[in-house]
């Protein structure tokens, strides 16, 4: 008998699968373009059927990624405005103090552990990094897709600048995912080998209490007052 808490709903889980797949396709078709003069990149491009096809796939995936980002942001804004969602991802002053407390703990300067709410500062950092990065690659990507149109209103130098920004922003996003996200979701001793919560939507009560104690306390408090707690179940 384990107590579970539902942490991610169907829409959120679907969004994660979509962004993950598109990120993979865009990285696979995009990074070899950035580094095309390197042997490995050329091999990948030729293996995928040549530069014309790689560009086509990259642009198609880019359009889907744009739609996904747009849908996600408008839905999120809509949910917050209508009061059906809390601003649980907005950075607060507590996130900064949490980061300092955590670093002090890591460095052995104190035994005090930060107590996190629904999302800790690392998750917020990654989320907003993704959103900001998405906005940058979408705007620069569209500039590269429609340079004639952009140049009708803006100086032409924006186009090579957009090309550099697009590739570098994407490279940074790729490295953050490879280093940070893969560590936190797979390699970290806390979750090794695989944190499945974003796919199944559930975590055990113990884990939630341990990793997001303030969120668990809030759930407990609502349950005690007789409303809420529907997302806690036993199996």
């Amino acid at each position: 008998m384990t107590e579970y808490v539902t942490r991610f709903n169907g829409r959120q889980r679907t969004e994660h699968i979509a962004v993950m797949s598109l990120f993979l396709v865009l990285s696979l078709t995009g990074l070899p373009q950035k580094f095309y003069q390197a042997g490995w990149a050329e091999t990948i491009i030729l293996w995928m059927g040549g530069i014309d096809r790689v560009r086509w796939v990259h642009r198609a995936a880019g359009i889907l990624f744009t739609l996904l980002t747009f849908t996600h942001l408008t839905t999120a804004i809509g949910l917050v405005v209508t009061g059906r969602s809390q601003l649980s991802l907005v950075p607060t002053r507590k996130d900064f103090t949490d980061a300092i407390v955590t670093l002090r703990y890591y460095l052995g300067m104190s035994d005090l552990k930060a107590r996190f709410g629904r999302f800790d500062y690392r998750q917020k950092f990654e989320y907003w990094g993704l959103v900001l990065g998405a906005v940058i690659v979408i705007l620069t990507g569209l500039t590269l897709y429609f340079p004639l149109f952009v140049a009708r209103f803006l100086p032409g130098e924006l186009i090579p600048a957009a090309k550099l920004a697009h590739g570098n922003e994407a490279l940074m996003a790729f490295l953050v995912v490879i280093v940070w996200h893969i560590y936190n979701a797979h390699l970290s001793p806390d979750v090794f080998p695989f944190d499945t919560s974003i796919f199944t939507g559930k975590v055990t009560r113990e884990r939630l209490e341990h990793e997001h104690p303030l969120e668990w306390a809030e759930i407990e408090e609502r349950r005690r007052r007789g409303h809420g707690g529907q997302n806690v179940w036993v199996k």
Partner: protein
Amino acid sequence: MPSFLLPLLIAATVHIQAPAPGSQDVETCLACHSDRNLAVALPDGESRGLFIDRAVFERSVHGGKLGCVDCHSDMTEVPHAARPFNTRREFTVAYYEQCKRCHFANYSKTLDSVHHAAQARGDSTAPLCVDCHGSHDITPPSQPRSRISQTCAKCHEGVQSTYARSVHGRALFEESNADVPACTDCHRSHDVGGPRAPGWRLKSPEICANCHTNERMMKKYGISTNVMSTYLADFHGMTASLHRSEQTDTGAVTALCIDCHGVHDITKVGEKTSPVMQANLVRVCQRCHRGATASFSAAWLSHYEPSWTKAPLVYGVKVFYAVLIPFMIGGLVLQILLHLWRVVVNR
């Protein structure tokens, strides 16, 4: 000494002791062929002169080295047997392969040329060895170098006159410049290629790069050798480079050196008539990008590496990420290491 080498030795000796090759038969032939009026009437009504100018032949590269029958190997009987030729051209076509007996390497190269391909299609005007080199009057074809393009001009007159006005042609003809390309430097001499040869178009930037990435040569003229790397770093160069690697002609087009700078009519970029002058550039862009504006053509940084003075916005983006990416990834790696360290300590 192994006995089987003996015949070889004898052959060599005999050869060395022979009189100056052909000198005797030259005299024999000239007994008739020094007659200025000697000619044969051909069935098509044309007349083929048979006069050989001794002085011209002796000044030629073969003078004193080859005798008449070394090339005219079937003309050993006097009077000569009747030949089945209807035209002068038929005679030339029948005899041109004589050259390969000595010049086999260059002969076999010609088999890969556009000229041979034209000949194989049945074009009898396609040039043979003697059409470019001459026959009894052969002299080194590139002395002086400007002679090369005059040779090609015998057929390609239009191209030659365009080339003569180009930055390369003017330097060749007016300054006898040894660096600028003559026809054969780009098109090669025996295995002559041209825009219709497969893969020629996509390979053409390499021809330009041969000289334009040569530091020592370009320094003389104050031309940057970054032209190739900046081209390859841009969209067009990337497309061209990868299409070339694909080795299948997809028919897709992208701008190569020649598409903006011209081919035989290449001008100095500083000249008013240059298509790539900033003021004229937009018209070059419009050839492919319909509706291109002057602002659009400014997207191309004219082979400049971005810097604070040239394209500061582009350079700014470059610097920004050169700082941000190591900072970001370094910070995250550091936090991961600290976390792992704490996990180990806690144990």
